[in-house]
């Protein structure tokens, strides 16, 4: 094993160029950026979905008993969690707060235009639209609102970015495999005589392959580690800035998920290195 490690390291040192290493670092870094963007979008999505409430508007002039009966019916719908009554006055108060300096609009309207309502929390955000449609069919309900369209659009946008990310990942992984493979190919050319002698004196294919696999592993590890570290440092810096500029965006601030992504990238780099080394040396030995 010591021989394989020494040979792999020697060869990597001799054959890896700054340009190929730099290209690889950039490729894995871009891959990591997409990973971070997707992780954050998914996080925002989860936050939004967990905060989803269905606002159920009810007919005016419903008696106290009528409101109580309706509340019970809503609570009886499968998947409904907490149900909270919002009187038209409370509704107007919160609207006024939301409008801020445009609150004068409410005065122009003259009277409170809002109906009484219930805020309904659902247990599983995926069932929001089904539950809303059941509730809208209940008697005395005049309408429901849960931000229809927004969450669906957000999920669709996230999916779109994920697909682009996946296509880009395939291209970038291909590029990294090619770069590492090219480094290994250079070693193969420079060690052609050595390999010929090895075969001649009875070395097994595995014995010949190990140093090249290790070389691929080393090149992959170096490239992806540099990318991983750069990615981590850049993300921390960005989060610091964004946190003060736009604190309302629920970005991932914990270290754990980001470190996990960086470690995954390093493992991916090592794996791609071994894969590229293996493919090229195998092909070489077969010819």
């Amino acid at each position, binding site marked *: 094993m010591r021989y394989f490690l020494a040979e792999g390291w020697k060869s990597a040192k001799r054959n890896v160029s700054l340009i190929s290493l730099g290209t690889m670092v950039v490729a894995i870094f871009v891959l990591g950026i997409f990973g971070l963007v997707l992780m954050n979008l998914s996080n925002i999505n989860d936050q939004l979905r967990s905060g989803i409430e269905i606002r159920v508007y009810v007919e005016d002039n419903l008696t106290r008993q009528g409101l109580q009966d309706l509340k019970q019916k809503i609570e009886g719908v499968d998947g409904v969690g907490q149900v909270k009554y919002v009187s038209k006055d409370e509704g107007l108060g919160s609207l006024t707060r939301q409008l801020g300096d445009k609150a004068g609009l409410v005065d122009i309207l003259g009277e409170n235009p809002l109906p009484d309502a219930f805020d309904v929390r659902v247990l599983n955000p995926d069932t929001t639209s089904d539950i809303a449609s059941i509730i809208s069919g209940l008697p005395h309900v005049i309408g429901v609102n849960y931000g229809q369209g927004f969450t669906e659009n957000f999920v669709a946008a996230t999916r779109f970015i994920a697909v682009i990310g996946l296509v880009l990942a395939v291209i970038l992984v291909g590029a990294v495999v090619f770069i590492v493979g090219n480094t290994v190919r250079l070693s193969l050319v420079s060690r052609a*005589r050595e390999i*010929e*002698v090895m*075969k*001649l*004196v*009875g070395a097994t*294919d595995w*014995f010949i392959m190990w140093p090249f696999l290790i070389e691929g592993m080393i090149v992959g590890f170096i490239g992806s580690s540099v990318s991983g570290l750069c990615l981590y440092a850049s993300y921390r810096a960005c989060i610091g800035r964004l946190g003060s500029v736009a604190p309302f965006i629920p970005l991932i601030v914990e270290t754990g998920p980001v470190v996990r992504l960086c470690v995954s990238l390093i493992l991916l780099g090592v794996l791609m290195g071994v894969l590229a080394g293996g493919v090229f040396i195998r092909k070489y030995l077969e010819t």
Partner: protein
Amino acid sequence: MLIRFYDVTKVYPSGATGLFSVNTFIRQGEFVFLVGPSGAGKTTFLKLLTRELIPTRGQVLLKGRNITRLRPNEVPYLRRSVRMIFQDYKLLPNKTVRDNVAFALLVTEKPRKQILPLVKEALQLVGLESKAMMHPGELSGGEQQRVSIARAIVGNPTILLADEPTGNLDMETSWDIMEVLLRINKRGTTVIMSTHNALIVDGLRRRVIELDKGRIIRDDERGIYEGEAERDAVLPG
């Protein structure tokens, strides 16, 4: 019988015939010269024994085992007992003489402790102990060939194949190499050597197999370089 060729034909993808319907045998411990013009099939004959080539037809038996049927992962083990030396030595220029020889054992995953004494013994046999730490570039052609012989015999192979080992050497150095090969043969290793050097073949009077256009046209137990018929044709009277 150590080696047997049964009706061996080798046709290359280009259509050229390397060997055609060759039947022969070689006993354990023999010293055999393969002679014949360039393209006669001498190298094809040797490469069939290391499984660098597979015959188009026929069988090559080594100690009764058909080596044409070996699986690819068995070939390295065959090559540990059938070693070959070449006209161009095939040494690794960045390694010392000692490391070049040790390399042959290192790749067979022999424990390092056992390697050094065996390397020393091999270098002793070829007379290069004193140059163990030199690099091939610092040695003469004859010395480089002796290093390649040491590398070939260090694992104590059953068969040593030599493909025109004196092709690049002057006569005096060629005799030095022959002396080493004879010494190795005396230890029990079967030696098969292809050559164009008539003086060496005639001087040693060992078994001679002559090939021409892929066929064996002569097989003499104590032969000379040229066949009697050819010599009679050029001798006066």
